[in-house]
């Protein structure tokens, strides 16, 4: 088959989202029974698969501690390792580019595309490319950018965004995909047989691998000591994108680096087991350069784009730096009761779920992300499963504090104070007065229990779904005094 999909749009770019709009989105999502059901089912499946990969709690504990240690070690040497990586990649023949912003990154890649008069860029899975709206930037410049990961391909065909960082099309049922393929791919009839659907995707995309001018990929681990880019995947599209076209561009955040090659062994193991509950992925692809003299295939040029986009802001703070330990396994979202109920799109960010809540403020600023940190019961399920032990709840609390703080002249975070509300701050100040003064608290609690009949029957969000709270007639301290 050599049909062009009729449309290759990639969803709306992530525009500024107000807290109000975000709230409305979450409201709609949580009230969509279809979405609730499919996410619940998918997350249950992924949780059970992960649990089956870690039958030995001691091994898990030890591997998590090691993985955390490796990520923290790497971050503690981050600038050195970046320079080492650059030197070794350059020695291997890879061209290294640095970008502070999405625009810079896109400009670098567009420049490469123009140099090669590229018409089509075929893409392996890369969340960083989502983060910088790569597809839009290329299409705006007349260069086609086609997703080739099956899930990403489906999402792109539907004009949507990924709703999960590992399983982008997790929100779509096979019937929806069947309909989509029948509508968008010429010559394809409706079938909801999964094998048949995958065959259709395979056929469309094989032609593209063969003809594309450039392949784009993400990076799972960049190894400084050898100058190697490691990619984890099951489908083989990543290998296609990095092997068949004449030019391979890899893009990664500056944090995805390790010093030693042997450091990837534990990280790779815990990544696939945490992510999809696989003992190992089908492919682990380690790229150390372009086609050399004598080589018969492989790209003639390999580029690496190192993207900051707010990561250095997280790096600047010892606590927030832990955000950068992330290896993007998605386990935190699979185990998140909030993500399970609202799905990935409601977050309005490239990275949804708990990791999205802690990384997005650095990428997008707190103005449009501060509400995310509050959309958590702090249950701790994310922190419990995170393979690199990022204390996600602790970071959510910290971000709430940054958002609440009175605006600074020199904010350490973009959008610091974005949720600052003098009225709410006043309420908390009064609260602290009350509870930090035992005598005042005693008087207040005495009154509240004695005049409990006056408790309002409507208690904002609480009574929407619950009967009202009412103080008891006597406090514990009264009972304690009267006992015996």
């Amino acid at each position, binding site marked *: 088959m050599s049909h062009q999909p009729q449309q290759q749009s990639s969803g709306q770019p992530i525009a500024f989202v107000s807290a109000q709009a975000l709230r409305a989105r*979450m*409201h709609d999502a*949580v009230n969509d029974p279809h979405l609730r059901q499919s996410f619940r089912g998918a997350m*249950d499946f992924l*949780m*059970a698969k992960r*649990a089956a990969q870690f039958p030995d*709690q001691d091994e898990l*504990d030890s591997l998590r501690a090691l993985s955390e240690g490796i990520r923290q070690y790497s971050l503690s040497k981050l600038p050195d390792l970046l320079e080492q990586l650059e030197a070794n990649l350059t020695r291997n023949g890879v061209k290294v580019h640095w970008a502070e912003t999405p625009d810079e990154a896109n400009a670098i890649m567009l420049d490469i595309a123009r140099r090669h008069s590229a018409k089509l860029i075929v893409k392996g899975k890369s969340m960083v490319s989502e983060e910088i709206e790569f597809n839009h930037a290329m299409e705006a410049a007349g260069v086609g950018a086609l997703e080739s990961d099956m899930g990403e391909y489906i999402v792109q065909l539907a004009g949507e965004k990924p709703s999960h960082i590992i399983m982008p099309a997790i929100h779509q049922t096979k019937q929806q995909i069947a309909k989509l393929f029948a509508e968008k791919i010429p010559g394809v009839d409706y079938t909801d047989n999964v094998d048949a659907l995958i065959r259709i995707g395979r056929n469309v995309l094989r032609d593209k691998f063969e003809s594309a001018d450039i392949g784009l990929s993400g990076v799972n681990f960049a190894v400084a000591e050898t100058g190697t880019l490691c990619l984890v995947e099951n489908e083989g599209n990543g290998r296609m994108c990095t092997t068949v076209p004449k030019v391979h561009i890899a893009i990664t955040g500056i944090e995805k680096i390790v010093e030693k090659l042997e450091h990837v062994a534990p990280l790779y193991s815990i990544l696939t087991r945490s992510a999809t509950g696989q003992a190992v992925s089908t492919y682990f692809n380690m790229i150390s350069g372009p086609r050399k003299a004598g080589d018969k295939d492989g790209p003639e040029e390999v580029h690496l784009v190192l993207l900051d986009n707010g990561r250095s802001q997280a790096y600047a703070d010892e606590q927030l730096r832990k955000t950068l330990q992330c290896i993007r396994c998605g386990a935190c979202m699979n185990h998140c*009761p*909030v993500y399970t*109920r*609202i799905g990935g799109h409601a977050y309005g960010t490239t990275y949804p779920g708990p990791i999205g809540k802690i990384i997005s403020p650095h990428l997008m600023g707190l103005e449009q992300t501060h509400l995310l*940190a*509050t*959309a*958590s*019961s*702090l*249950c*701790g*399920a994310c*922190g*419990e499963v995170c393979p690199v032990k990022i204390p996600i709840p602790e970071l959510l*609390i*910290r*971000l*709430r*504090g*940054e958002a*609440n703080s009175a605006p600074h002249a020199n904010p350490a975070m973009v959008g610091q104070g974005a949720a600052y509300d003098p009225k709410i*701050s006043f309420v*908390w*100040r009064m*609260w*602290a007065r009350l*509870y*930090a*003064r*035992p005598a005042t*608290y005693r008087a207040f*609690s005495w009154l*509240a229990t004695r005049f409990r009949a006056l408790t309002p029957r409507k208690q*904002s*969000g*609480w009574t*929407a*779904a*619950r*009967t009202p*709270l009412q*103080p*008891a007639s*006597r*406090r*514990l*301290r009264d*009972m*304690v005094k009267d*006992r015996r």
Partner: protein
Amino acid sequence: MSNPVVSTHAGHQARSYPSRPEAVYFYGTCLVDMFVPEAGMDAITLLEREGIRVIFPDNQTCCGQPAFTSGFPEEARQVIASQLDLFPGDYPIVVPSGSCGGMIRWHWEKVIGDDAALQARAAAIAARTYEFAEFLLHVVGFSRKDEGPATTVTLHTSCSARREMGTHLVGRELLARLGNVTLAHHDHESECCGFGGTFSLKHPDISTAMVTDKVAALKATGASQLVTADCGCMLNITKRAAKEDLDAGRAKPSLPGEHLATFLLRRTGGKPAGDQQ
């Protein structure tokens, strides 16, 4: 439906327990003090019945958790600072709530600020703070004869008790020690009930979806009641169930719930404070 088992490890080291002390401090928590005093009272009665003197510091107010988790660390700090003098003796501190216990044990030292002396005091308090059920099992060695009729209950453990204090196994063990009580496990047992303090007020939609699922899972066990060692979750769950009853015109509560202390006391021949009223 599948019931994925999330790691049973609390992310923290298993702790070693002291021998049974002569006395304990009882830190009732602001929620118990004003909203569920009988649960606190029953916990105290259980301890006293075991011959342990219970000291209730009158200046106790709140562990600071509401402000801390809402992102008002300075306000939390002020409240915590006011609580550091409450426990002058070297007795254990017993807290009938996993989340408040977790706040004291894991966060006071960090929230209290840079003053090393204050940090040391907070750390010393943290080291001898125990969640009530944990204390009852591991320190008191609770084993009283179950005098109640055969019954089936279901247990909800708060997320902080489970993940910060590692006490969900404790609740199970205490119930198992009652000879006549069967514990019915519920679907997605390790999942949050959706309370999360101000989360339930700030995101009522999501919180409601969570508590509604939790109530359904608990009811689906067919257990006669809910037992929990955390009053925040208890209020969230039972008041949601009560609302469902109200909306459906049911007079009899479809999911009655009580604190583990109250349940244990009643089963072992004691008189819960709530029953006396």
